[in-house]
């Protein structure tokens, strides 16, 4: 008998509130979730429902107001800022809606930027970056400044940057919000390929069309996270 692998990310009764002039605003209310290796989870929900706040907690960019977050079995609340930072930079990849590329730099330089704060030798970083570009079919654009790319290409550069140093968990926030239908499909296929390669993905979106690419879906509404069954 084999036991199920431990979850990469586990949140237990996590709440998050932000101070406002009218008192604290509760954005996440007692959320519990376990993300297992190899999953491709899509979190659906309208703007302001708490998706990004949830992703920030998962990315260890923020601490919950209450509840516990475990990453790879480690209680994150017990870690200091430096330990959280180390965990984040080596284990977590992030992709953003507006790509967050350094527009003056070339495509390869943008992908190499993933290693800016990692202890990786330059030649090794270059090898990983080229592999990531190949995977995203961006090799012909490697020396092009990032600002000259199309939206879909920019998002693929952002994905290449996130996975150039393979993460345990890839967090993706509205990746297709700025893309047309064709680019959306291209970008989502990239995520699907990465998931098949074993990368666990947590993707937040308000676009229901992306559900067909995932293995599990959740809905974020009024600060709560509800499991939603996938329909064919």
């Amino acid at each position, binding site marked *: 008998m084999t036991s199920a692998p431990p979850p990469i990310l586990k949140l237990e009764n996590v709440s998050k509130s932000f101070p406002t002039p009218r008192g604290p605003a509760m954005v996440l209310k007692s959320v519990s979730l376990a993300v297992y290796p190899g999953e491709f989870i899509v979190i659906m929900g309208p703007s302001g429902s708490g998706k990004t706040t949830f992703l920030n907690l998962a990315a260890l960019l923020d601490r919950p107001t209450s509840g516990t977050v475990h990453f790879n079995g480690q209680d994150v609340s017990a870690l200091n800022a430096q330990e959280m930072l*180390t965990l984040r930079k080596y284990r977590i990849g992030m992709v953003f809606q507006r790509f967050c590329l350094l527009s003056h730099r070339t495509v390869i330089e943008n992908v190499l930027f993933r290693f800016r704060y990692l202890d990786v030798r330059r030649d090794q970083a270059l090898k990983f970056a080229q592999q990531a570009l190949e995977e995203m079919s961006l090799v012909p654009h490697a020396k092009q400044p990032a600002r000259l790319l199309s939206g879909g290409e920019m998002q693929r550069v952002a994905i290449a940057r996130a996975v150039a140093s393979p993460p345990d968990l890839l967090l993706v926030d509205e990746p297709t919000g700025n893309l047309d239908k064709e680019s959306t499909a291209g970008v989502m296929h990239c995520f699907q390929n990465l998931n098949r390669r074993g990368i666990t993905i947590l993707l937040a979106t308000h676009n229901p069309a992306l559900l067909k690419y995932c293995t599990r879906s959740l809905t974020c509404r009024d600060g709560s996270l509800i499991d939603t069954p996938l329909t064919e």
Partner: protein
Amino acid sequence: MRLKALIDDIGEGLRAQPGRAGLSFASLSLGMAALVSLLAILGGVRQKTQLMISELGVNVFGLIQPPDTSRRTENSLLSRRHTDYLAANLIGASVTGIRFENGVAAGLPDGAILAAIDENLFQVRPWQIVNGRAFDTAVLRNRERYAIVSTALAQVMNLSVGSDIRLRNLTFRIIGTADIEAGALDTRDTQNAVTPGNLILMIPWSIPSYWSSTVVPETRRLDTIFIKASAPASFSALIHRAEALMLQPDYAVAGLSWITPQSLVERLMHYQRLIMLAGGAIILLCLILGGLTVTSLLLTGVQTRVPEIGLRRALGASPTDIGLLFMCEALLITLSATLAGTCGAWVLLKIILAWSSLPIHLGPDVVTIPLLAGLILGIAFSYWPARAAARISPSEALRNE
């Protein structure tokens, strides 16, 4: 890789606002060039002070009577009786007196000076006999027709130890050549009586006069008396004692000016203070304005680069990394402006030095002090923006993305 990445990162920030970065660079360069010029001038004045003191001699002070003595009575003129009087009353001090005459009348070349000296001169003044010997008591007593020539005059007149020189109708034998430092003390205040140039021929004061006579026998009249303390500790006491002696009714002298190392330093310190205050205020203003443009550049950078800060934090940058990034940008501007300003001013001052005799000294402090100032400016004026950037919460920064 770290260094290259840091350089790329700094370039990123500066490329975003080339106009502002250029303005900061230009204003700081100007400020630094002005600072270098000020330091070079102050260094020059300081060097001039040291030269003046060394030219006067260590623990030496002088009493000078300006040359307009024609209407004075015998008793009110500086003369040999004063050297005898001071030597007798200032125990442990060496006293010497000199009279200068225009050498042209005696047959010396234009600009040369004929000096009547005693046996103590080379013990008191920092002039060095380089060849031959100085006068001794016997030379003075026997009224030997000997002469000592400065090396500069010896070169001009092709003289050496053993040569003869004819002054009016008398022949003098050169028994020594002496090195005489001159130039630093040639000021209107000292009436050129401390070191009247370096073309000097010295003869014993006791040779019978053969030039025009005034109320005081020419052999006894003096232009300057120099006194040297035997020990530095007794120097100021010696000056006060000499002042008191020269106030005695029988020895009081009209229009006497006292040249002490203190008076020389004070005179130059006055100019130094003026230059420092006026120049320093302008330079400080320039540097503060330059520094403020750097702060403004960085603050705008922090505002416009919030998403980039968020990305860096997401990729593993610590708040210190973010703060240092902005501080390094500021340091790049201030240090490169320092370098440009220093090089520009250095070249300009070298050209000025080649064409004029302004007191300019290009020492190592002319480079190190601006570099230090650039470093301090860079850190001080980037501290606030760097702190603001480091304090941006990564989740907030990415929300702005």
